[in-house]
């Protein structure tokens, strides 16, 4: 009898110690995110924002009484290595929760994996990656919602207000750009716009002289561009050199990279007149104290870590991903993927970037893509981009800070 009692006591002690040890273990959140490659600049800024959120949460004592640990790997903006990274996060690092990489092309390859494993995945600025696979535990923190309507719609609406009737498309031959451009074509067709030029190009192209020459020859009123950072910079430069012709009333739309400080700084006045999507710009109609306070803290650390010093585009939204996890875990007192997904699906998420409600495919129910026109940029001083009046918001109406000017007028 004494032996049995000793054994029971030993098991009880071991269980208590085990539970205590688990309580001491941090909550592991895994992410593969570009630190190198074409999206490396954005990825570094995004990761810094998540690290700031982690530090803030841990300073408050963590979640469920446990500290938060962020485990991240560089996906090199290379879709082929992303499934391997997420398999490692799940099987070797044994993370509790997953955040998706930044971007569409690198997120698409892990959608089958997370669906098969029944894992919750917080999306990170990807576009339409769940349209086909329909994973019910996908929640994309990106302001464009499902489909291309919220993205291409305001751009083409503005173009039609200026009398645009013909359109030229340019798109990188990659997942994001093709998804966006395909949507853009459908919206243009529905609006009765005539496509006069449509050209895909290989990703990472460095010279666009011939394509811009062809756009000029097509005499389009509207030029809708879906490009990645290095290409966006090369396109802006080629437009300055070759010119798109006097018929063009609006140019831009889906150019990734024109939101990144180093590219904005390098291009300077060449950006004037371009109309491009964004998530946040420092116009008076859009500033909110929470984002401003965060950006003030972010810019100090960004400067020290040689990361995008402005941080308007991705960092507030990445911090918001952390806030959503914090809210869901706090409310459910659980780390179970299904329980958290159920909460995220049914509740309004209160974040720094606003209240977010997800639809059935895990995208924002109410999209809020900002279309802004670069204006009045002089020289290469980066600090000017912190001031209002440099990126005039033309849509959505709630944040509108000015009317769209025709490209030819706004570029001078």
């Amino acid at each position, binding site marked *: 009898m004494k032996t049995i009692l000793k054994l029971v006591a030993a098991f009880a002690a071991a269980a208590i110690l085990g539970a205590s040890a688990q309580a001491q273990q941090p909550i592991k959140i895994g992410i593969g995110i570009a*630190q190198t490659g074409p999206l*490396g600049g954005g990825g570094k800024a995004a990761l810094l924002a998540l690290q700031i959120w982690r530090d803030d949460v841990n300073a408050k004592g963590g979640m469920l009484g446990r500290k938060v640990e962020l485990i991240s790997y560089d996906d090199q903006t290379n879709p082929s290595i992303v499934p391997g990274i997420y398999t490692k996060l799940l099987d070797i690092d044994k993370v509790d929760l997953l955040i998706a990489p930044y971007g569409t092309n690198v997120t698409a390859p892990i959608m089958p994996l997370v669906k098969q494993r029944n894992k919750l995945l917080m999306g990170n600025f990807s576009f339409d990656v769940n349209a086909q696979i329909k994973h019910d535990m996908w929640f994309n923190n990106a302001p464009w919602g499902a489909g291309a309507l919220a993205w291409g719609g305001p751009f083409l609406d503005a173009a039609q207000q200026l009398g645009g009737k013909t359109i030229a498309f340019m798109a990188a031959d990659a997942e994001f750009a093709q998804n966006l451009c395909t949507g853009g074509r459908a919206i243009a067709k529905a609006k009765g716009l005539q496509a006069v030029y449509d050209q895909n190009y290989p990703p990472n192209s460095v010279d666009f002289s011939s394509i811009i020459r062809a756009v000029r020859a097509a005499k389009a009123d509207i030029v809708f561009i879906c490009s990645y950072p290095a290409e966006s910079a090369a396109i802006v*430069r080629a437009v300055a050199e070759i010119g798109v012709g006097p018929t063009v009333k609006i140019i831009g739309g889906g150019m990734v990279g024109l939101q990144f400080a180093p590219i904005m700084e*390098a291009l300077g006045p060449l950006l004037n007149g371009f109309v491009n999507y964004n998530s946040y710009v420092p116009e008076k109609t859009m500033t909110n104290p929470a984002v401003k306070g965060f950006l003030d803290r972010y810019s100090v650390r960004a400067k020290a870590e040689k990361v995008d010093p402005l941080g308007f585009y991705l960092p507030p939204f990445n911090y918001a991903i952390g806030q959503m996890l914090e809210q869901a875990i706090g409310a459910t007192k659980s780390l179970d993927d299904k329980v958290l997904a159920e909460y995220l699906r049914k509740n309004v998420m209160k974040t720094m970037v606003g209240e977010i409600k997800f639809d059935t495919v895990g995208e924002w129910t109410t999209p809020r893509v900002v279309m802004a026109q670069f204006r009045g940029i002089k020289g290469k001083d980066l600090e000017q981009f912190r001031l209002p009046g440099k990126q005039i918001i033309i849509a959505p109406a709630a944040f509108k800070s000015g009317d769209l000017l025709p490209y030819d007028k706004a570029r001078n």
Partner: protein
Amino acid sequence: MSVGLSISFGLLDVPHVAHPAFLVLGAYATYALVGYGMDPLVAGVLLMPMFFVFGLGVYQFYYMTFERRGTDLGVRGIAFFFGIAFIVQVGLILAFGVDQRMVEADYIGTAVEIGDVRIPKRMIVAFGVALALTTSLALYLSKTFTGRAIKAVAQDEGALRLMGADPVRIKRWAFGIATATCALAGALLIIVGPVDPNLDRLYIGRTFCVVVLAGMGSMSGTLVAGLILGVAESLVLSSVGTAWAPAVAFGILLVVLGVRPAGLFGR
């Protein structure tokens, strides 16, 4: 971009897969000098002697650790240069970050107008300098004693030794020249478009393809092969489809090697 590789790989038979990384290094070195108000082309020219010395050092290390021991064959030499390329990439990321970098000059962002056609000045400058560099190298290799010695070392090292010349010294010198071209070619690279530390991955296949298509070690052939591939890619891009454009280089290479195994201008 391929002329330097035409020397190091085409003539010296060194599996220099770090050549595109050296080009990107040249581009970043140019970027750094432009920050002090220097013209990118002038910066590229000024960097050439430094890159020459750097090339001498790299070859000497490669010779001491691999070639002299007879272990340069197979994957070891390639692994060595991949390692160097990786170190260059990481070094650039640590020094400059991962963002794309560009430079400014009077001939960047403006165009020459011929009737209705506008040609970017940066492309004209890049073409002119590349033409001058290729011509100079071709003349150097065919008209000077050292140049002819470089060609000789490619044909028969033993015979050169019998003539009283030191093949290792000649090869080291040639590798230095090949590396020096990376400084100027890197300057042209950043003049033409934005660069990032990982850009070399994009050029590894194409640069080797141009050298083999031209015929190993042919300078004029390198220029012609580069033009052929560029025009063919553009034509395929606009007529057949984007997905096929990257395959053009190797498609043409396969056809040419099938018909003419020595390459277009190889002997």
